[in-house]
């Protein structure tokens, strides 16, 4: 077999690919979703199921994705359908791999909008801070009003109706920035940017953390609202929650989503790593970076800051509520330094978002280049057209963030579970766990402990299946009822279906092209022949 596929892109350094994968994983969920989950499910005690899920689910699935990605890349394919078709020896896994394109592309459609909110808030703080008024009693209402204006959540079409809304300007700015960085390629775009953005994000987060931990008791009239009480609210363990299945489910879901496994991103990123380079330690390092941001920044900043100024009521409000509505009130309460703490906070969120959104565009760009033989510039323009169309859809149906919510549930949650389940079965049972681990160990700096052979083959698929079934039982009936009742939800599902169909057709063209090139797309040959 002679492959005509040429590696078009390469990572420049091991630390670069680690930071790129970590940047993909560190997102808003680390800072906003994790603390909310911990508070709801037993505080400090939540960390017991959380670390179990990390060990049994997150880290092993990560290793399997890195190994499968490199396995496909060595054989000349870098797109998720190509890689899964090769690992799974056939057409069915290949078309399941279309989910690995749909997921990042559709998530980008709403994530790009959230990124635009972060940029707009960051800019507002850098320019002097949003005007919440002079009366502290009115700050909460003013902050809620600001959030409604930024997101257009009061009415459909509010952001795109007449005039040039700043959120829309930010949306196009972040899209242009994302596309430009993706166009520059792996080493010159994504890798270089993540090497700057990740340390910058850490610096911003450390600045906010220091300020939050030195708040003391800012309001003498409310002595019980102090830093220690805020930390206690987050970390005091409630062991009774450990007997609740929901707690274990929530921990599994948090670890799973936080690490960006089942996204299709790691498969693509790892496909550009050569056999002589390590992937075992790199995968673990990327996961540990994500955990560092999640546990030590997300676990110490958000809840503590909200509690110190607003008490337990300030912590309620969900992911967006705490991050975009409660914390601006907290920053206003800090006085003059609040402007800079707010700017650092929203810059942290913006950098977390953009390092993630970059990773969502890259797998689809690689697929367009690989399946249709497009030049990088053409692929980026086509990708940009699809992405901006979806983002405009989400921005238009902004009332109650219904389009965003629908995509987030059906694609950003359910489809990820499905793809991850397919992947872990392919790795453990079709490719074979022994062959997969052997492949992972090529060039490895450390060895995967033997116990993970059983975890990857038995424990992780069962754990994932239980989390998936539990999640569906808890959420599917309500969601199906929502789809039945809401035209926006139905039409958004239709849009997602159209994108899925388009990607499946392109995969069919890709199959033909890859076969014509002589690539072993069903993975029947024993040894890779693609020179590196």
């Amino acid at each position, binding site marked *: 077999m002679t492959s005509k596929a040429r590696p078009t892109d390469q990572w420049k350094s091991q630390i670069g690919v680690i930071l790129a994968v970590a940047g993909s994983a560190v997102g808003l969920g680390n800072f906003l979703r994790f603390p909310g989950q911990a508070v709801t499910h037993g505080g400090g005690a939540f960390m017991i199921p959380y670390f179990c899920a990390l060990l049994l689910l997150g880290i092993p699935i990560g290793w399997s994705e890195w190994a499968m990605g490199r396995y496909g890349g060595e054989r000349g394919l870098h797109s998720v359908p190509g890689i899964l078709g090769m690992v799974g020896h056939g057409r069915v896994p290949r078309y399941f791999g279309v989910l690995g394109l749909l997921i990042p592309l559709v998530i980008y459609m709403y994530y790009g909008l959230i990124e635009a909110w972060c940029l707009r808030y960051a800019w507002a703080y850098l320019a002097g801070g949003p005007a919440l008024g002079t009366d502290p009693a009115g700050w909460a209402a003013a902050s809620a009003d600001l959030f409604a204006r930024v997101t257009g959540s009061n009415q459909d079409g509010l952001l795109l109706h007449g005039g040039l809304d700043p959120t829309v300007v930010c949306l196009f700015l972040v899209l242009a920035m994302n596309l430009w960085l993706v166009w520059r390629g792996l080493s010159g775009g994504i890798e270089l940017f993540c090497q700057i953005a990740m340390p910058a994000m850490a610096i911003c987060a450390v600045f906010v953390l220091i300020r939050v931990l030195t708040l003391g008791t800012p309001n003498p009239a409310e002595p019980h609202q102090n830093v220690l009480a805020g930390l*206690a609210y987050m*970390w005091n363990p409630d062991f009774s929650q450990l007997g609740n299945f929901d707690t274990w489910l929530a921990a599994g879901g948090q670890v799973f989503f936080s690490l960006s496994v089942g996204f299709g991103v790691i498969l693509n990123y790892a496909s550009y790593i050569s056999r002589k380079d390590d992937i075992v330690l790199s995968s673990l390092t990327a996961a540990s970076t994500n955990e560092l941001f999640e546990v030590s920044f997300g676990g110490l900043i958000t809840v503590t800051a909200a509690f110190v100024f607003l008490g337990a009521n300030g912590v309620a409000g969900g992911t967006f509520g705490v991050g975009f509505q409660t914390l601006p009130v907290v920053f206003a309460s800090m006085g003059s330094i609040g402007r800079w703490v707010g700017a650092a906070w929203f810059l942290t969120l913006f950098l977390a978002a953009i390092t993630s959104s970059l990773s969502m565009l890259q797998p689809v760009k690689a697929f367009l280049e690989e399946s249709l033989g497009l030049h990088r510039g053409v692929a980026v323009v086509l990708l940009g057209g699809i992405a901006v169309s979806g983002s405009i859809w989400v921005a238009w149906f902004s009332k109650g963030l219904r389009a965003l919510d629908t995509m987030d549930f059906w694609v950003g949650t359910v489809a990820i579970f499905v793809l991850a389940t397919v992947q872990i079965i392919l790795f453990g049972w079709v490719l074979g766990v022994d062959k997969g681990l052997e492949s992972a160990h090529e060039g490895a700096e450390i060895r995967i402990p033997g116990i993970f052979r059983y975890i990857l083959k038995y424990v992780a698929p069962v754990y994932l299946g239980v989390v998936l079934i539990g999640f569906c039982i808890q959420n599917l009936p309500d969601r199906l009822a929502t789809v039945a009742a809401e035209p926006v939800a139905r039409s958004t599902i239709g849009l997602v279906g159209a994108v899925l169909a388009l990607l499946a057709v392109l995969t069919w063209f890709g199959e033909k092209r890859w076969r014509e090139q002589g690539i072993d797309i069903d993975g029947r040959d024993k040894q890779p022949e693609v020179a590196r």
Partner: protein
Amino acid sequence: MTAGGWVFLIVSVGTVWSLAAWCYYRVLFGKRSAEYRQMHDPSE
């Protein structure tokens, strides 16, 4: 803050920092990294 709260905070934050520190140490100064640098840097 209860003693249990402190234990969970310190152990959790300590675990993730220790893991990250160990990983980055191995990435930057590990055996393979040293060999790799030696292969590519004749001055070493």
